[in-house]
């Protein structure tokens, strides 16, 4: 087991190294630089500013400087947000992204599984169709449509929650969490439903029923575990996607998360901030994939023995 984790971490490290190198050089291909904002600044002054941020050095030296910084967890200064270092910006944005991300994945998992199980148990019933409709809507209607729509209904018309911002604390997070969860509720419920239908046909479930165990216990004690395997496999990448993919949500709901830093950084050629967030996203994806594999191996003995 330890060897497995070690190998995965090593592979992950290599992937990150490739990611850093590639991002660093590809980013410089984009026209413009962090300080080309206006045509009125004199070349001498611009040169001075470039020098302060070591942008006047040959690119390989800048790369070496960056890698050296990474070794000490120094991600460099932000050129877009002049008052902050990249570490500061990530530290201020990440908690928001993680908070709404984790809540969204929790809501999506609980509601999605519940809907999926309900659908599988009462196939072709009203419940099943309702869950199906939620599924289709959740997947088909994009966030930038459903988000503003929910703002109009729940914030402007009903006044239950604020439109955006963080002034009203947790109430401000309700809509973004729901909107972020919706496509995942849809996906998880469809996944659970088909998986449950399949599992309910398995021999061990039939055995359990033959022993005279009630249907509720059959589902909870026996079928659910088998049903959840594909859901868990989906959860790892989905969590990463939710945390990294909340850019639209953060913009629509005016939340100070990391996704917005990322877009802002890219548009403003904030090289260190783009690097820092790319690195973070990469690490997050790799880690969550490893964790998913571990959980699957723990639940499913076949995977464990296969290795």
């Amino acid at each position, binding site marked *: 087991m330890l060897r497995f984790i070690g190998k995965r971490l090593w592979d992950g490290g290599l992937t990150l190294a490739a990611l850093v190198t590639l991002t660093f050089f590809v980013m410089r291909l984009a026209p413009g630089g962090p300080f080309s904002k206006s*045509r009125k600044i004199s070349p001498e002054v611009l040169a001075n500013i470039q020098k302060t941020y070591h942008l006047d050095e040959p690119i390989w030296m800048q790369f070496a400087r960056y890698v050296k910084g990474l070794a000490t967890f120094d991600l460099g200064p932000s050129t877009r*947000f002049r008052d902050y270092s990249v570490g*500061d910006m990530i530290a201020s944005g990440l*908690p928001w992204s993680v908070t709404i991300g984790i809540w969204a994945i929790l809501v999506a998992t609980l509601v999605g599984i519940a809907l999926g199980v309900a659908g599988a148990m009462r196939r072709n019933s009203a419940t099943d169709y309702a869950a199906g409709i939620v599924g289709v809507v959740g997947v088909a209607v994009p966030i930038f449509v459903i988000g503003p729509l929910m703002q109009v209904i729940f914030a402007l018309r009903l006044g239950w929650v604020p439109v955006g911002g963080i002034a009203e*604390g947790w109430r401000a997070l309700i809509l973004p969490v729901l909107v972020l969860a919706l496509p995942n509720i849809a996906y998880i419920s469809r996944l659970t439903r088909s998986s449950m239908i399949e599992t309910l046909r398995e021999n061990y479930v039939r055995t359990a029923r033959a022993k005279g165990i009630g249907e509720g216990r059959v589902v909870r004690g026996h079928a659910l575990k088998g049903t959840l395997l594909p859901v868990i496999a989906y959860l790892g990448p989905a969590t990463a996607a939710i945390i990294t993919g909340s850019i639209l949500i953060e913009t629509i709901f005016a939340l*100070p998360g990391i996704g917005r830093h990322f877009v802002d950084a890219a*548009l403003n050629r904030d090289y260190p901030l783009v690097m820092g967030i790319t690195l973070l996203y990469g690490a997050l994806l790799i880690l969550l994939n490893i964790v998913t594999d571990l959980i699957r191996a723990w639940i499913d003995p076949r995977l464990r023995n296969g290795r």
Partner: protein
Amino acid sequence: MRNLLGSALGGMALAVSLALALPALADDTLDRGIGSEWSSLDPQVNFDAAAGWIQMDAYEGLVTFDGTGKVIPGAAESWDVSADGKTYTFHLRDGLKWSNGDPLVAQDFVNGILRTLNPETASEKGYYFYSVIQVKGAKAIADGETKDAATLGVTAPDARTVVVEMETPNPHMLDIMGGFQVAPLHSPSFAADGAGVFIDPAKVVTNGAYMFKEVVPQSHVLLVKNPNYWDAANVKIPQVRYLVTEDVNTELKRYQAGEIDITYDIPVNQIEALKASVPAEVSIGPSTEVTYYSFNLQRPPLDNIDVRRALSLAIDRETLQAKIVKGGAIPSYSYAGGFDPDYHGPQIAEATMAQADRDAMAKELLAKAGYGPDNPLKLKIVTTVAEDRVRLAQGVALMWKKTLGVEASVDSMERKAWLDAFYAGDWDVFGDNLVGDFAGAETFLAYMRPSAEPGYNWVKPEYDAAMDVAAEEVDPVARNEKLAAAEKILLDDSIFAPIAIEPTRHMVSPHVKGWSTSAAGYNNTQFLSLE
């Protein structure tokens, strides 16, 4: 360097506690949208107009602006101008204090300018002091040739006097001194904590009507009334919160929900509906941003003035703004000062003609140059990706096609690429825009000097000469007349087609009193009140 993991965990704990706390929305707080996040709260570094609002509330210059953009006394109660117009002597008010109670002295203003110019500060706005106005010795300090503060033409002979000496007379120096460009520096706190002090509400010291209480990146800045401000008795709003409002549609909804009192902008496609439903809350006025379409003088046939004039004539500016862009911009037939009531500049020669006559003349001119329906002129327009800019370019292309048979393609690019493209010269027509350094014609005309902006490849010694003449004039009225003479030379060469003056667009809640539109763009909270 801060430990990343540690601060991430700390931040996470903070977010959780913030999320659990439920602060009541106080009615004594003015909530203002500011668009994208400020790039810096460092008063000597910040270069963004929107962040400038925060700074205008937190720091006060020697002079400041009222809500309409007029220069009024600030930290200085009066000033004298020498006969040659080159030396300004400011007299500070008696008993001025910083927000922590320290005395505010003339040297603090000198130190602020010195720090802006210091290359180590890496500030982008030192050019205000050596290019927009020519302060003695400013350029040498900005270029790092000298560090000797005594060589700078800004001095404090005593605690209540600031003297500014310039190379050339410039009545607009007051506009610069009042703007967010010139905040004093509280040296003790800066010396103790460096630039980090400006984002730390516990440590930052200000001299304006407000002081910092909360700074949350990508979210908001909360300012509270500064009890040590000299005019604190007349500051009516206890708190002002500047909210980052990146998405203009979300901002409008937040306004409608009462979360924001004054917006940063209005979504272009909502303007008409809002004007119909809540006309009193829509505040649209001219800004100091001018849009014009520059022609690439190095690319034939655009080196031919007939072709350039034809293209300029065929743009129906009224239809463009009223029917196509619909963003509230004001059609313009001149370049500079359309928002400056004291400047009476020229317009392009055909401004008074009807559009049908202009179109006929345009066809004629283009035919003379050898282009017409059977030999269409092909052009590339380069513009930014902003929705209204793209629509503008498509509208212009359409008018050129309809009237002149010109085949124009629109190449829209992200802003940084657009800036680079200008100097790369890979364009026939450049969707250009310029934001003035102050609300006066001169800032635009000075920028168009071939010696100041070589990117247009415009060779015109007469223009530089005419601008030199104006630059020596002390009397503001005579100076504007000389500037107008220079603008005539500029417009006559048709190196660009003037298009419009861009608007400032705000939704202003009926609770807010004292608001007025200002081309200078300064609406200091201290002059507003809440009902």
